[in-house]
């Protein structure tokens, strides 16, 4: 199906998310949609898939004008989107999700749907148990299920939003193979939204680049990375040369540590993090790396083993004791787990600092907050409520709240959702910490980030930690295999 977008505009208040974008996409082709954060990729795709309505502009499918008032209407016209976090219902079975929203005949055609699903899955080389509950499936499997559902409903245009975040190298291979098959054999139009240049180069035929809400240009693959980066940023960000501040002293030692999450048991963790070290953890979502951070933060109690922090046995410490022992934990969800929507920056600063007495000295904290705002270049005032800040500024605010000095910094996805320059800036802050002597233990779904930023890396797979590799001697490819449980 041929897709044409004509002069699409979409403003959110002052923000011009899409500022007159025109594109033409041919059937049977795979397109990569590139752009830094805020370039308008997601907005454009949500407009094409009916999630948002454009303020002005037309969508044409096979040269016919169409207007979508909902995603369902877009799908009825052949446009389907797979979201980064697949929009399915966790407490239902796979087949129920497959059926949800289809015709209203009173009896559900379970058995017919089950066999249809299995057949379609096998054609694409997927294996999903129709009876499995969604919350027991991996993100990769849930994407496959969504793909099957969209195809069953007649999708001719497929939009995939960051589909490789949190899936294994093997699953990625499978997904890419099926996408190629769908485009080349079935003539589907495929759009891959991504900011991973290597994947775009691997899979796509053409690349479309957006910058600040405008369409910058189209290039055919193969094409050099430098060229793509230049189109995205107009300038090439300097690739940082990694400085290591590794010291001799061991800061954190875990020996034979075992702990349990809701659905996963992790055993036999032996790990030593040295002072000034940046230690990265790789792994699919829910493979145990988050549990390890939580165990080090005192949020879950190990069942067995020993955790030593700077010579002190902290195995039985609670989160608040860990905090007092100069350990900080920054979770991935900023407004869910990091900041309190409805409180101002100044109130956050007062909360995060060690309590002195009973009465809060607001004048003192106003000064402190202002200086932090200046130092971390936060766009806001001390009285600004945190939920009114933009995502990047919220991330900065979180860093501004960290105490100083810190022994150990535990981070989840430190730069997820940030563009290259913001990510660069965050890592500069982190390196300053490391220079002061803090150690960092973090995990990320971005393998390139892990290789580039860490001193050493370990991968998690199904609750088992791999051997530890040195970052300078490894590649994203090797990590991908470790994530898949290979040695």
């Amino acid at each position, binding site marked *: 199906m041929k897709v044409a977008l004509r002069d699409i505009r979409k403003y959110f208040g002052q923000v011009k998310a899409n500022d007159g974008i025109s594109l033409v996409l041919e059937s049977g082709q795979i397109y990569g949609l590139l752009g830094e954060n805020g370039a308008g990729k997601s907005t454009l795709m*949500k407009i094409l898939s009916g999630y948002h309505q454009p303020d002005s502009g037309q969508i044409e499918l096979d040269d016919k004008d169409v207007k979508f008032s909902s995603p*369902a209407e877009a799908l009825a016209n052949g446009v389907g989107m797979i979201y980064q976090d697949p929009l399915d*219902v966790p407490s239902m079975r796979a087949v129920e999700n497959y*059926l*949800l929203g289809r015709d209203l005949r009173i009896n*559900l055609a379970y058995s017919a749907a089950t066999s249809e699903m299995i057949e379609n899955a096998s054609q694409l080389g997927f294996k999903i148990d129709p009876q499995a509950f969604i919350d027991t499936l991996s993100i990769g499997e849930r994407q496959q299920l969504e793909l099957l559902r969209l195809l069953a409903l007649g999708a001719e245009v497929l939009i995939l939003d960051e589909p490789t975040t949190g899936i294994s190298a093997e699953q990625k291979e499978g997904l890419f193979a099926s996408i190629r098959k769908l485009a080349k054999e079935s003539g589907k139009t495929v759009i891959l939204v991504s900011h991973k240049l290597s994947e775009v180069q691997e899979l796509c035929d053409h690349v479309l680049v957006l910058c600040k809400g405008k369409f910058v240009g189209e290039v055919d693959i193969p094409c050099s990375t430098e060229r793509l980066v230049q189109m995205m940023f107009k300038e090439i960000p300097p690739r940082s040369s990694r400085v290591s501040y590794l010291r001799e002293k061991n800061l954190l030692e875990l020996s034979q540590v075992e702990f349990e999450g809701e659905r996963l048991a992790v055993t036999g963790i032996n790990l030593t993090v040295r002072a000034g070290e940046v230690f990265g953890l790789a792994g699919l979502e829910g493979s145990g790396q988050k549990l390890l951070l939580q165990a080090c933060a005192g949020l879950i109690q190990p069942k067995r083993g020993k955790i030593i922090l700077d010579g002190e046995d902290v195995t039985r410490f609670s989160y608040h004791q860990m905090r007092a022992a100069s350990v900080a934990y920054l979770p991935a969800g900023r407004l869910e787990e990091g900041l309190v929507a409805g409180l101002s920056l100044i109130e956050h600063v007062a909360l995060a600092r060690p309590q002195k007495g009973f009465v809060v000295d607001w004048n003192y904290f106003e000064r402190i907050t202002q200086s932090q705002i200046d130092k971390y270049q936060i766009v806001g005032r001390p009285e600004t409520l945190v939920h009114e800040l933009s995502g990047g500024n919220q991330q900065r605010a979180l860093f501004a709240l960290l105490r100083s000095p810190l022994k150990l910094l535990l981070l989840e996805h430190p730069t997820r959702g940030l563009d290259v320059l913001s990510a660069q800036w965050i890592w500069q802050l982190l390196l300053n910490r490391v220079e002061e002597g803090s150690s960092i233990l973090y995990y990320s779904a971005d393998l390139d980030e892990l290789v580039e930023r860490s001193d050493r890396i370990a991968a998690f797979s199904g609750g088992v930690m791999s051997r530890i590799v040195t970052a300078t001697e490894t590649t994203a490819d090797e990590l991908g295999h470790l994530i898949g449980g290979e040695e």
Partner: protein
Amino acid sequence: MNDSELVRILSSIVLQSTPLAIAVCGETITERAGVVNLSLDGTMLLSAMVGFVAGLLSKSVWVGFLAAAGVGALFAFIIAFGSIRLRKDQFAVGFVLTLLGDELSAFLGQNYTRIPGQKVSHLGIPLLKDIPILGPMFFDHDLVVYFTFILVGVTWWWMFRTQHGLRLRSAGERPEAGFVRGINVNRLRYIYTLVGGSLVGIAGAAYSLDIKLGWSEGHTRGLGWIALAIVIFGGWSPIRGAFGALLFGASKALAAALQRRFPEESVVVFNATPWVLMIAVLLLVGSDATDRLIALVPRRFQSRLRQLLRVRPPGALGTLFIPGEAGGE
């Protein structure tokens, strides 16, 4: 105690539990769609009163039930409208309606207290009622009881075996997922909140027209809260909820039997039973007690048992859904 007495007690437990089971079923439907109707206690009081008076004036129990269902639907509508349209806190609105229903029932029903009224007539089902033990227990009652059996069964089937049920559950579990599949989440929430509320109204009238005949101030006070707790205990399943109502009825019957034995001391025990029970069952489902119990059974049964005993509220319970704004990031 001989056999026939035991059968009589069991039969009365089934009978006594029906209004509660209806209310639990109604609230389960509402909450499965993602809305909390906290006003059950007030709704049931007012609908018990209105049902009784409407039945009395029209000389027909069915008019009484209809009027009661109307009251339940009205209160449910206020909650749905307040939360979906006006985006106000449904807990607060529900709580105010609880008190308002109580006061309104006392005021409007002040001239109808303690007078005889209509009663649903007894209707044993031929043949079935002659089955030993089970017959008198389940099939020698009246239409309200049979309605409850059918209601629970149909609700379960609707929820878990039809496309409508999938849509209902998606609205309460993950409305964004329903939205991208073309489901009008907020309209479903309106509909099911109204259906659930009507059932709660019918439950109120089932007391005043059948199980606890007549009207007096505070006639069903407290039972609405019990029903809300049973919804949780029942893990948002109509069948488990009905089972919970039955269990509650049984323990009340047990307390009543105890009271007959020791009339002096046990009035306290009798009155306190429902509330102690409420804390106990919520503790049971809230704490990890069930997990520990599951760990005791053989490993191969564990996952099935966990599935059966799983108590997890609908993912989007009590939250707002604005199409096109939430999720999908």
